[in-house]
């Protein structure tokens, strides 16, 4: 296959650049959209194109070079035909993605770290911080196709599958309705995770079956239900009958589900169906009908009940019931009633008072009282105020905001509009990370529909209040979740934070008072306005009122998205809702709050989910990522993992974060490599304290948290690493694979070993050559008699 990218400037057609500039504008703040357009066109950023941009706009060479090299998204060299983005988020890390990456690179023949494209130019491999599909960990994306549950062994199949695929782009609109009385509705979740599990092809199969059978059934795309561990989920709602949910549905099953629920129309088709079923009942194999029945899950059954039971839906109200971008449906479900109230009946003070009563605190992680923030912006001096929705959810292991944006775009718009009204802003911006294309698409569509309907624009809902909402995409920088860095990014600069005070509430976008709130925060607002702040405050704890959306992932049986009242204990979340660990072993810790948070040990599992309680236990609330860890997870490795993330994402401005976290990471890497020195723990603690107290922004200030919390609760593991042992048997440098005498000499391990570290000896006990072994775990995975042991320590 030939490479399709050209590297020589002479052959680059620069007229495309002119088109992009016309679309994005010539101001300095157009730089990121222009760069994104250039990359979409040429698949990297040719220097000639960047120079042309400087000629056509106010953007200077210094600005464009600085911005183009700051954000992860931008590539400066041509790439292969297909891009493989391997997720290195928390859940994926815990699920073993480093070994998957190794296997992938080996398979593509990439030897040195600098090489990222195979020799034929087919695939370029990129590590990305988090794709937000945590319950399918480990995950990778090849172009637009997502694959989950990877193993080092499955890598070659995945690549082959991708190359074989015909890219039938699943259209994301609803199926065409039928004339005549409807027999019912089939709902199918089509969020990013669901699609990664194949729900798009399930939907196609359903539509095809319906077309064939002629049944008058509507297929409806709905937003996330949260039961990610059960996807693809199909809910069948026969008119006048009991709704029935089917889990883990495959495209092949879809046909049977449809036909068993909705009889084919027309006598000929019906007879055909019955005859087929009759014949199948003789073959002895599970008939299609039986198979379909086996996928059904009963909403009253324990696992579902346990998962859904304790939840309270505020931000995720009507989850799984409405089509995300269907405006009429949103309106039918109390949509924009809250906004109407805030424009018609209530004034700014009343709105803000209600927010005070509700006690809502920022859901992005810091937990600042929302009412206070709104009040600050409202009274700040400035002619042109802004409201920003922070959709730069960068915590690896967190995907709540993605889900809310994909499933409830109108709700977020409503919350944002209410906030804008309360603070007096007539311009609002959605800032969404570019790694969330579906969320961006749905928000863009929702904004357009709102404008058409007069819900946004010069006189929203017919009132004398104007609000213009624009959409800006991030370009790959975790630090841009910090509000001053976000503002810098919107202004077309490198996402470098600045010291606060002054806060953006007083001095923000373009120097004007700017409200910055998280997606989930806005998503709670309409409910609060409709039901009253007191109703919200009635849930939760005295200092942490209301509900919180969490993304439960890691070793847990039932991972997914949940919304629970604050005050629920971690134990309840992990054991009751999550069903405990997949392995059945007791869980060891819960990582709360992502790279800014900490690991709460099982001994403290009765800690309630509450801002202050979590801080006391050595963590933070964070944005909502909860990763469950068990005995197979190494806490030193977890600390190293998080620190390597924050180190990579550091903007580089302040000394302690830029260099301090690097030195801390080097110590952790030495520990995990068995090269720790006695003085290391003290040095690590000392640096951690310094970085925490002497960094410019929240990224640096909280980067040491995972280290500090694991040192506090799991110090013994650190000491073990100093002695050359990894108690969890994870760290490759400290473990050995050994084949014991259960070995039957089947040679399977020798055949599958990717580095030929096991010589095949038919019928004899095999041996692992420790010098060649890369600790990928393949031998252990394929051994039929469980003869492979993992050892650590000496002797």
């Amino acid at each position, binding site marked *: 296959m030939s490479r399709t990218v050209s590297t020589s400037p002479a052959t680059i057609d620069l007229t495309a650049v002119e088109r992009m500039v016309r679309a994005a504008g010539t101001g300095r703040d157009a730089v990121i959209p222009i760069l994104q357009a250039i990359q979409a066109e040429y698949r990297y950023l040719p220097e000639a194109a960047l120079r042309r941009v400087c000629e056509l706009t106010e953007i200077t*060479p210094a600005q464009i*070079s600085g911005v183009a090299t700051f954000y992860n998204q931008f590539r400066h060299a041509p790439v292969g035909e297909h891009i493989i983005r391997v997720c290195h988020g928390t859940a994926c890390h815990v699920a073993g993605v480093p070994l998957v990456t190794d296997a992938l690179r080996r398979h593509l023949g990439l030897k040195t770290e600098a090489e990222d494209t195979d020799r034929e130019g087919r695939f370029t491999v990129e590590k990305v911080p988090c794709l937000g599909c945590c319950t399918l960990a480990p995950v990778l994306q090849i172009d637009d196709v997502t694959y989950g549950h990877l193993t080092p062994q499955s890598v070659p199949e995945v690549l082959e599958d991708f190359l074989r695929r015909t890219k039938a782009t699943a259209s994301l609109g609803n199926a065409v309705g039928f004339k005549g009385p409807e027999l019912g509705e089939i709902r199918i979740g089509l969020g990013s995770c669901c699609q990664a599990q194949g729900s798009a092809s399930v939907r196609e199969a359903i539509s095809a079956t319906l077309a064939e059978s002629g049944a008058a059934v509507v297929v409806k795309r709905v937003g996330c239900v949260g039961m990610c561990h059960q996807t693809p989920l199909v809910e069948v709602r026969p008119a006048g009958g009991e709704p029935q949910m089917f889990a883990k549905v495959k495209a092949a099953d879809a046909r049977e589900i449809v036909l068993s629920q909705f009889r084919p129309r027309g006598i000929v088709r019906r007879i055909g169906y019955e005859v087929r079923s009759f014949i199948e009942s003789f073959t002895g194999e599970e008939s299609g009908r039986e198979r379909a029945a086996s996928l059904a899950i009963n909403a009253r059954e324990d696992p579902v009940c346990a998962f859904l039971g304790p939840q309270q839906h505020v931000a995720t109200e009507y989850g799984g019931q409405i089509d995300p971008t269907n405006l009429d449906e949103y309106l039918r479900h109390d949509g924009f009633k809250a906004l109407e109230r805030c424009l018609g009946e209530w004034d700014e003070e009343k709105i803000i008072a209600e927010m005070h009563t509700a006690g809502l605190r920022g859901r992005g992680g810091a937990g600042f009282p929302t009412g206070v923030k709104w009040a600050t912006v409202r009274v700040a001096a400035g002619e042109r105020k802004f409201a920003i929705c922070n959709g730069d959810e960068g915590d690896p292991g967190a995907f709540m905001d993605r889900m809310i944006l994909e499933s409830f775009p109108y709700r977020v718009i409503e919350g944002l509009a209410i906030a804008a009204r309360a603070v007096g802003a007539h311009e609002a911006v959605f800032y969404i990370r570019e790694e969330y294309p579906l969320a961006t698409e749905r928000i863009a569509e929702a904004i357009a529909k709102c404008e058409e309907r007069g819900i946004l624009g010069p006189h929203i809902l017919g009132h004398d209040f104007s609000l213009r909402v624009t959409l800006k995409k991030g370009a790959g920088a975790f630090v841009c979740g910090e509000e001053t860095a976000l503002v810098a990014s919107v202004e077309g600069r490198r996402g470098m934070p600045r010291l606060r005070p002054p806060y953006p509430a007083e001095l923000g976008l373009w120097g004007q008072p700017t409200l910055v709130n998280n997606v989930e925060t806005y998503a709670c607002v309409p409910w609060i306005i409709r039901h009253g702040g007191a109703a919200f405050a009635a849930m939760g704890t005295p200092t942490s009122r209301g509900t919180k959306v969490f993304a439960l992932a890691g070793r847990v049986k039932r991972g997914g998205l949940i919304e629970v009242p604050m005050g629920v204990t971690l134990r309840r979340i992990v054991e009751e809702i999550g069903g405990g660990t997949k392995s059945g072993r007791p869980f060891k810790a819960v990582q709360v709050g992502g790279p800014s948070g900490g690991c709460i040990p099982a001994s403290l599992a009765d800690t309630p989910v509450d801002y202050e309680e979590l801080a006391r236990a050595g963590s933070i609330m964070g944005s909502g990522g909860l990763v469950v860890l068990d005995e197979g997870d190494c806490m030193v490795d977890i600390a190293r993992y998080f620190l390597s993330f924050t180190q990579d994402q550091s903007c*580089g401005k302040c000394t302690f974060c830029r260099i301090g976290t690097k*030195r801390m990471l080097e110590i952790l890497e030495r520990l995990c490599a068995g090269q720790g020195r006695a003085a290391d723990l003290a040095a690590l603690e000392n640096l951690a304290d310094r970085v925490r107290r002497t960094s410019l922004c929240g990224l640096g200030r909280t980067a040491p948290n995972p280290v500090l919390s694991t040192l506090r609760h799991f110090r013994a593991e650190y000491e073990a690493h100093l002695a050359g042992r990894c108690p969890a048997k994870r760290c490759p440098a400290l473990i050995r694979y050994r084949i014991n005498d259960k070995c039957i000499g089947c040679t399977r391990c020798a055949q599958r070993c990717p580095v030929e570290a096991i010589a095949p000896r038919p019928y004899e006990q095999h041996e692992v050559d420790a010098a060649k072994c890369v600790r990928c775990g393949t031998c252990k995975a394929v051994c039929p008699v469980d003869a492979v042991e993992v050892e650590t320590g000496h002797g």
Partner: protein
Amino acid sequence: MVKLTIDNRPVEAAAGTTILAAAAQVGIRIPTLCHLAAREPETSCYVCVVQIEGRRELSPACATRVTAGMVVETQTEDVRRARQTALELLLSDHAGDCVGPCTLGCPAHLEIADFIAALRGGDGRSAAGLVVRGLALPATLGHICPGFCEGACRRKALDEAVAIRELHRYVAETDLELTAPYDPPCAAATGRRAAVVGAGPAGLAAALHLRQLGHECTVFEAQKELGGALRTGLPEWRLPRKILDGEIERLRRLGVKFQTGEKLGENLSLDRLRAEYGAVLLALGTQKAGGPADPRAEHVAGSGAALDLALVKSLGLETGPRGVKVEREAMATNLPGVFAAGNLVSGAQYAVHAVAGGRRAAVAMDAHLRGQALGHRPHEVHSLLGHLKESEVARLRAFADPAQREAAEDLTAAQAAVEARRCLDCDCRKRDNCCLRKLGEEYGAAAARYRGERREFERDATHPEVIYEAGKCIQCGICLRLAEEVREPLGLTFIGRGFRVRVAGPFAAHLADALHEAARRAAESCPTGALALRRGARDGT
């Protein structure tokens, strides 16, 4: 106006003033690196941190605005440690030598890069001044020194070390042949008198230095001729008499008095010396059993050269494992006012060690003569480039003069010129006025405390006036801001993010294209040696 307290002093400042500026108003100096006066703060270096009462975190004074009733402390123990750590972290990611490995390797710390640069620039006189003041006997040593400097020379990574010894020999001998050779200037006469016993390398070096400090100096020598082991231990072909005599003549010109045939313990009394002189230096050397030691051949203590222990004991001096015991910095023996240096202290070592010891003793004697305590040696910060990566060696090769080392020992002027161009000039251009180094010394920073991955050595020498070494950059952004202010068409920008962030011209532009009007100002304002004026541009030539 806002009223606050800084270091227990009341301060009144206009609203919006930073703590840094408010402190300056009352004469309290808070250190900074990334601050550019009268501009918005960069908040990058975090050296200016202070403790604000009630806050757990330390705050950057350059960017924190004063509020009413604020209580600020600028020099708590915690604040000082934080500044020290910030400096140490910056130094841990610093690719450069403050002082070249040659100078550090030389026991006398001769300013090698400077004298070679002077030679390159055709300024033989300055070169002579540097080697005379630095080595006391530069021509002599140019014949016999083993050349620790060359052992450390970075040029070795490319081909062979620079012939440093041959170069200072050339410089010193050329100077000696002048009708008016270089004589170091002497300070005004102090009226104080020092005695030196022993006219070997230690004693001669001490005498030269004492004269430069303005003290009278008399050298007592047991033998008939001066020079000690330099005279008696080396044949003519190793060290021509003419050279040694010429360098000793310099001492005479400076006013050093010599008395030969005076032997301590025989016709020379230590008590008498102590009575008549303010300070006495014993530089007796070592004696081979049966004759003086060859300072070049035997340098391992105990290999035949020995102290005259009987004499030493009879004088009442304490001894250590190698020789007479002295306090290392003060070079003082157990007898008040009596100092010792050279082989007498260290056992048999090279002449260059003796020269270094002699000079150290002279400094200590100077303090003693003035009745002052010898000041603590100030903390020194030495950033070391250390072991070079392949890529770094390649970059050195790119700008190094390609000439091979001159094999001759006795260089002609032409050969010396060629050899001088081989020098890579490793000393930092801002060796003596680097803010990072100076603050590091003030806060006792240990450059090697946080060893780990560091940025790579790079040198952009395209610009006619300014050299840019990205490895020394601390990302303060001063040069960026200066370039922006004068609207440089290209200017400088941050490339990349995090630990790998670098300051460079856009589109990989070289410095010559990136900076025009702002270049000189940027070099002067850069707080480290990253952007610095070339040697020629510095002195305006």
